[in-house]
């Protein structure tokens, strides 16, 4: 009963044409050879990937993986207690509090990142404050370093960690916790043996949702990273926009996709049947 099935066709076609097909083009470019500006010889050349397999570029991937890992862990450490706090409010406040997390998330990533330029710069409020209070004795020198980029990505993607965690914790059957406490487990034991495993899919989902965008980040390193931060995102945009070496840029991007796919496979494998539970929290 109800609406006809072909209703999904327009969206389907749209996605295939404008999402899947362009990715195909990108694959084609990565298998090509650059012959001067915008002259690309297509074919099945492995040149770009051979070029990619060089410590110079592999280090860039490594730096990016490290940053994304630290960023994800940071989001997890900040986000889990926060999600727990949110999920354990009475429902009257819970909606409002949760909504207050959504609002910054949907506002412009660019503006939110840019705001850290204002906050972190040498002559800015944080620097003055820290010097006055005596935490540092020279102007704050964190802007245009990897530290600033880390702060930026954690700030930008924290909500993405919080959402699935919140859902997971909220859906958790509290009686199990009660039971555990009744049976004599300490708070920590309860947490480790009951809460954590129960919310595990949420943790995995949150990590996946933050790690992947952090890997592909381009805006944050450009604005906050200065000269010292050159990540995969910066490399891709450099190759596409400055060096105008599209085949190589495509290959670097393929590397990124490869990492992404590996992560997704790991995610699905580790969670197994609970993957639905984790993904469901996205809904």
């Amino acid at each position, binding site marked *: 009963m109800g609406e006809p099935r072909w209703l999904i066709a327009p969206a389907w076609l749209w996605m295939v044409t404008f999402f899947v097909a362009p990715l195909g083009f990108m694959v084609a470019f990565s298998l090509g050879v650059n012959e001067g*500006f915008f002259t690309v010889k297509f074919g099945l050349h492995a040149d770009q990937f051979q070029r990619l397999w060089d410590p110079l570029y592999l280090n860039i991937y490594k730096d990016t993986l490290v940053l994304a890992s630290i960023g994800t862990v940071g989001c997890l450490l900040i986000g889990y207690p926060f999600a727990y706090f949110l999920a354990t409010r009475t429902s009257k406040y819970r909606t409002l509090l949760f909504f207050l997390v959504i609002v910054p998330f949907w506002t412009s990533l660019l503006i939110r990142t840019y705001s850290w330029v204002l906050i972190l710069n040498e002559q800015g409020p944080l620097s003055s404050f820290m010097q006055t209070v005596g935490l540092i004795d020279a102007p704050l020198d964190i802007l245009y370093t990897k530290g600033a980029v880390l702060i930026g990505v954690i700030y930008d993607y924290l909500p993405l960690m919080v959402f699935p965690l919140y859902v997971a914790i909220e859906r958790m059957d509290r009686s199990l916790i009660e039971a555990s406490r009744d049976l004599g487990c300490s708070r920590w034991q309860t947490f480790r043996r009951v809460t954590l495993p129960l919310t595990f899919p949420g943790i995995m989902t949150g990590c996946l949702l933050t790690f992947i965008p952090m890997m592909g980040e381009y805006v944050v390193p450009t604005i906050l990273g*200065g000269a010292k931060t050159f990540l995969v995102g910066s490399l891709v945009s450099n190759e596409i*926009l400055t060096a105008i070496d599209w085949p190589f840029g495509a290959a670097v991007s393929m590397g990124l996709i490869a990492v992404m796919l590996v992560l997704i496979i790991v995610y699905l494998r580790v969670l197994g049947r609970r993957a639905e539970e984790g993904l469901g929290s996205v809904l």
Partner: protein
Amino acid sequence: MTERDVTPAWARRPVSRRGFLAAGAAVGLLAACGETEVGPQATKPKPQGSSAAPTEIEDSLSIYNWADYVHPKTYPQFEKEFDVKITEDNYPSNEDALAKLKAGAAGYDLVVPTGYMVEIMAAEGILLELDHAQIPNLSLVEPQFLDLSFDPGNRFSVPKDYGTTGYGYRSDLVKEEMKSWEDFYRLAPKYSGRYTVLDSPPEVVGSALKMLGYSYNSIDPKEISEATDEILKLKPHVRQITSSMREVMISGEAYVSLTWNGEIGYVALDAPKALYVVPEEGTEVWTDNWSIVAGAPHPAAAHAFINWALQPKIQAQDTEYHYYGGVVQGEEEFLDPAIAKDPSVYPPEEVMSKLEVAQANPDWTRLRNEAWTKFKAA
């Protein structure tokens, strides 16, 4: 300063555009050879450049330019006199402009490439061959800026202004006096984290080449490799790679910036102790040029604008805004004497003789881009 000109009544009628061009040509000819021709002149070819635009000028013009590169009054003045609506989009580097244009960005009429990029763009077929008949004021350009190696015969470009790529430093924050590339590189560890460099492969690599005594345009892989080593040594001390360092130089977050002369002129307005250095070893002298994009929707307006911008008065107006030297004879008459005598805007002859013009070719570009990726990733 210059108030907006009141356009005489005869110039407001459509046919008067030709008249105005004729008048503009007449002013130019006045400076050049003392003849006077006033009033609407039809297309009578003259040896020093003919006077009228053969076609009607369109009513809008789209300019693709560097940011802050034209006096705020320049466009409104042109708009008013020619009844043309101008829109401007900006790019932060030549390579950005090339990428966008080559990717098929249609709709731009004018673009402002630096010399070496003119050659690249022309080879890529991105530029329209200029109709000199529509740019009689070309004759006003000083001969040393015409017919340069990147565009013999000025088929694709007309010089807009020129400048040098050296470095500026805050003499109140840097204790040493700096005069050469050697100083620039040597002092970097001492002022670590206080350096910025341009986001431009040829200019940064070039600075190292010049310091090592090689040609700015070297395509010898060994020389490039040595230069790469030098810039890699510099990298840890660099705060930002950017073509906009004015703010950080003014605020003192940066002490030393590898940049163009005009930028420091601007910085010095707020930080009087900022000095610009044309390094002793020599460096690049470049011209930025007006070029018309192939397939431009408004070619007549584009030609008219180029011609109009070559007037000494307009050149002077722009120079006083962006601090890059004008290229047209007779500019001094309209120029603030302090700027006319400023050696960072108008380097003296003995300095100019040590400067090189960038000469692009595929190897040149490739070697520098490779060095640049290493630099950025370091």
